[in-house]
């Protein structure tokens, strides 16, 4: 061994540091032994990881994915617990993945790779993306009926949206729209509440501006609507107002852009005006917006209805109502969580039946789900007095029947590119960084680019 070729490692080896190397080898050895032990003890099915035959779905195992990481997640877990208690023969493996594109990318990739979950949550707005390549198992109405579910049991609008090119691809769980939260104490101070202590519905842009200005005079932030880090809320605000004006965005599954310039610019100008007058605070992220309203620093909060539990837990004096009818009608952006059965590598009727039974069980627990803020799609619960008694959740119940779902395009839906790019433009208008006209151009540009992309499905 020639001296001039020694590496530092060699230099070390010849010095009395064997303790450290022994330590390292010992650690690695322990790791190896532990691995073998775990594999042999059948705690984990290691062999299947090599053969790829088993994606964790043995006969009595049901693999369930969802993306409910927010406050409503605990409600889903409560519903899952009910299912597990009443069906002790089934091992429900539930995994929560991060909301948005990561979830859908993973779901699509897993389905294509042949190892999808047995049942998963999917936003109905994503149906134009998952439907065409056949990633979802079509559900015949007979099969649904066998498991206690019929079309008439669901919110019609949601059930129809889950129907795609002649097949029922999803079973709706809820509808969740953009709503208006209002701090009853602050609104009372501004003299805005009616005799029953509620905020009367606001109609038209002038009325909304008047309310906001009145609130500003009392020294609070009139309304907070977040757009930092997550462009969804910005998109929902714009889309609500735009849909209220009757506007349409795309045609031909997204390949054609039919954005109405006049209406869009009017909406953006209105948003811009609120920002310019200091009536709307939007340079916060999701947590920040919630925190602001929770702390009683903002009188109004525009967000999806799922934050209700946070404010109830915080003992905040507040209520909720449908989003104001600013531009004509009172539709609001909404999406629906649905249950889907991803396409399985091989047909397994028993597993499918198990999955449908689970879905039916969870639907029966929709009251728990409604406590989390969502409007149940399962009519047998939605029609009950118990749900109507849930305040303030049932205040906006009717919005489910006039929900404005995301435009039907393969690139749209919850957490999609469309929401991100368009939302970015809108968000910048919200902070005053872009003029309404510039914001419109950016948004149009985003849609044009998306519409020209080769449809991958």
């Amino acid at each position, binding site marked *: 061994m020639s001296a001039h070729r020694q590496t530092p490692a060699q230099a070390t080896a010849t010095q009395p540091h064997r303790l450290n190397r022994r330590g390292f080898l010992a650690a690695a050895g322990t790791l190896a032994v532990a691995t073998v032990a775990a594999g042999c003890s059948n705690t984990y099915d290691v062999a299947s990881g090599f053969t790829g035959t088993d994606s964790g779905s043995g006969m009595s195992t049901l693999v369930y994915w969802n993306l409910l990481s927010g406050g409503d997640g605990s409600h889903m877990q409560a519903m899952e617990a009910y299912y597990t208690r009443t069906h002790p023969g089934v091992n429900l493996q539930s995994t929560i993945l991060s909301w948005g594109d990561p979830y859908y990318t993973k779901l699509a990739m897993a389905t294509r790779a042949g190892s999808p979950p047995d049942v998963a949550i999917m936003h109905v707005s994503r149906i134009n993306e998952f439907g065409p390549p056949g990633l979802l198992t079509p559900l015949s109405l007979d099969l649904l009926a066998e498991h206690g579910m019929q079309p008439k049991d669901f919110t019609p609008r949601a059930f129809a949206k889950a129907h795609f090119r002649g097949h029922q691809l999803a079973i709706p769980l809820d509808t969740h729209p953009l709503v208006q939260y209002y701090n009853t104490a602050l609104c009372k101070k501004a003299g805005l509440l009616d005799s029953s202590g509620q905020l009367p519905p606001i109609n038209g842009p002038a009325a909304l501006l008047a309310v906001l200005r009145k609130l500003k005079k009392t020294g609070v932030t009139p309304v907070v609507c977040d757009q930092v880090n997550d462009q969804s809320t910005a998109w929902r605000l714009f889309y609500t107002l735009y849909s209220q004006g009757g506007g349409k965005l795309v045609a031909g599954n997204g390949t054609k852009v039919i954005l109405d310039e006049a209406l869009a610019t009017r909406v953006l100008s209105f948003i811009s005006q609120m920002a310019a007058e200091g009536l709307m605070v939007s340079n916060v992220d999701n947590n920040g917006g919630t925190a602001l309203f929770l702390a009683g620093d903002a009188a109004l909060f525009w967000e999806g209805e799922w934050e209700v539990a946070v404010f109830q837990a915080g003992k905040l004096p507040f209520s909720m109502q449908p989003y104001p009818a600013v531009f004509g009608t009172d539709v609001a952006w909404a999406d629906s969580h649905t249950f889907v059965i991803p396409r399985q590598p091989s047909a397994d009727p028993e597993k499918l039946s198990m999955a449908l039974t689970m879905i039916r069980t969870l639907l029966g627990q929709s009251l728990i789900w409604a406590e989390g803020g969502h409007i149940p799609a399962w009519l047998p619960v939605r029609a009950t007095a118990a749900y109507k008694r849930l305040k303030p959740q049932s205040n906006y119940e009717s919005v489910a029947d006039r929900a404005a779902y995301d435009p039907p395009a393969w690139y749209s839906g919850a957490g999609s590119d469309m929401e*991100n790019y368009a939302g970015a433009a809108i968000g910048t208008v919200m902070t005053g960084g872009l003029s309404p006209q510039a914001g419109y151009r950016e948004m149009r540009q985003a849609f044009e680019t998306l519409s020209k992309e080769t449809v991958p499905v």
Partner: protein
Amino acid sequence: MTTRAMRLPATTAGRTTRRARLSGGDLSGLGFLAPFLIFYALFLILPLVLDVVMSLFNTSLVLPGFGSFAGLANYRELFGDSRFWQAMWHTILFTLVSTPPLVLLSLFFAIAVNRISRGQWFFRLAFFLPYILPSAVIALIWTWLYEPGYGLIDGFFHLLGLGPPGWLSSPSLALYSIVIVTVWWTIGFNFILYLAGLQEIPREVYEASSIDGASRWRQTWRLTLPMLGRTTTLVVVLQVIASLKIFDQIYLITAGGPNYATRSAIEFIYDTGFTSQRVGYASAASLVLFVVILVVSFVWLALVQRQERV
């Protein structure tokens, strides 16, 4: 799989018999090389070839086969795609901003720590421990540190009476926040390289200059730094190449946001290939990035060759 294996016999087919250094046949030499070559061919060469091929087609992640032939259409679209160039720019900006502190700070640490006689383990622990943490852990730690309101950094700013900026929420600031994370995370690697380089410098050189009356500062400036020239080249080039390939911390901390302000080139490739499912287009982008990295590597090779000759 058979392509590579079949090529090997061809190269040895026409060989003339030479006196082997070790008798035992040349084929067994090849036999030793074969396992590696198989892996190499399958998982480095073949993908590269596929990259080139798929970039000429409209390959989709969903559908089997290569899809319709596109010729250079993908490249043409790529060169006009502002989102791609933004991603490239973010990557380059990241490289430009992160390399100086990662190189200079680690150098300073190494020189300073090298002088300290006792307790070097403490500094090794402090600076190198982050390096062995996985990126997912780094993301958790720093997202929490940067958390608006509750985070430690915001708390520190409150203490100073300053209004904290939107670390991860401001499009203009987010990338720099990621730079800070990266410096904290990976400086240990350069630190170790520099320490090793410093310890190669023999005492006699310093002793001689001490006798001559040189001050510590002079010694550092005139002796240490020049002798670390080779190590510095290594550190800089490794750093630059690593920065060009950046993905993990950006994807995990900001997901490329806000408003795609931090999306790196690799993340663009990932988004295009796996989320938008446009494999052919993503392959074209991969090759462009690969060429950039290749150029940097060649520059490095040239630099090292020159230093070798000195």
